[in-house]
């Protein structure tokens, strides 16, 4: 088997295992990454929401916020894990697609 094939398979396994990145923090009651708090957490932490942060923070509405489907925030870990895996597949596919396009542009044709 070609090494690139092996590496793609390894990536697939990593995607399937990725919900660990959701389940372990939940199990150990770990919160957001430092400096990646939502407005509620910010209010609790410093007692106010910085004005600029509130404005800029609302700038972009990601279609799959935090690697989950919109409206699924309150669902259990099983649902979120499923959404996480779907996000992983989508993300990896997009990475490959974008690099493929970049490759088309950058690779010299006469080689």
């Amino acid at each position: 088997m070609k090494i690139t094939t092996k590496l793609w398979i390894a990536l697939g396994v990593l995607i399937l295992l990725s919900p660990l990145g959701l389940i372990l923090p939940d199990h150990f009651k770990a919160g957001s990454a430092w400096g990646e708090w939502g407005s509620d957490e910010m209010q609790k932490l410093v007692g106010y929401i910085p004005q600029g942060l509130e404005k800029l923070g609302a700038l972009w509405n990601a279609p799959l916020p935090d690697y989950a489907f919109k409206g699924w925030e309150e669902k259990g870990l099983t649902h979120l894990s499923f959404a996480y895996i779907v996000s992983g597949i989508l993300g990896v596919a997009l990475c490959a697609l974008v690099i493929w396009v970049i490759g088309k542009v950058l690779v010299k044709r006469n080689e």
Partner: protein
Amino acid sequence: MHIPDGYLGPATCGVFYAVMLPLWVAASRIVKKRLTARQVPLLAIGAAFSFVIMMFNVPIPGGSTGHAVGGVLVAILLGPWAAMIAITVALVIQAFLFGDGGITAIGANCFNMAVVLPFVGYYIYKLISGNSAINSSQRVVAAFIAGYIGINVAALLAGVEFGLQPYLCHTAQGQALYCPYGLKVAVPAMAGEHLLIFGWVEAIVTALVVKYLQKQSPEYLSADRQDLGQEVP
């Protein structure tokens, strides 16, 4: 380490976009010189690997979370300029599609994770591995140390970027407009958690994959065969 929208003021965001623009141009020029069609899949795997590894949030029990970036590994295998392109792609997709890292902070996040992290890691790996044999354990140790230091320098930088905000942007009453924590809080927090926990994750991931490739495909580690350009021409 993904700085969200609203934590950095407009000036900081602008500066980092301005810094990144020539770097992205340089990266595409340098990679273009050596990139062959056969290497494109490896570059894609690099971007995808970085994307996936960042999904593995590692908890500090009762505290925050963090993750490896995988960028030092990509730099060791493909060279730091190619790593810059691969990680940039992962970061941009994370920001736009998943809201992980801000749109306005793409410049800063790319500077930390797609430039500083792979370049620091790459040169430390080169320095420590020296002329050692491809299958030597010296290279595994080099990868371990390079991963640890690479991600820690990037985290320190992110801490400084966060920490400068209260001094740069505040209301007349002194209330912060963006990140409310100054250098004295942000730097120890960002640097500390990466020194203690997340840095080791990057180190272990980098070392393990290098060890695996030594056995399976040592040609990927040989001098410059897969290196898509590491020197400024």
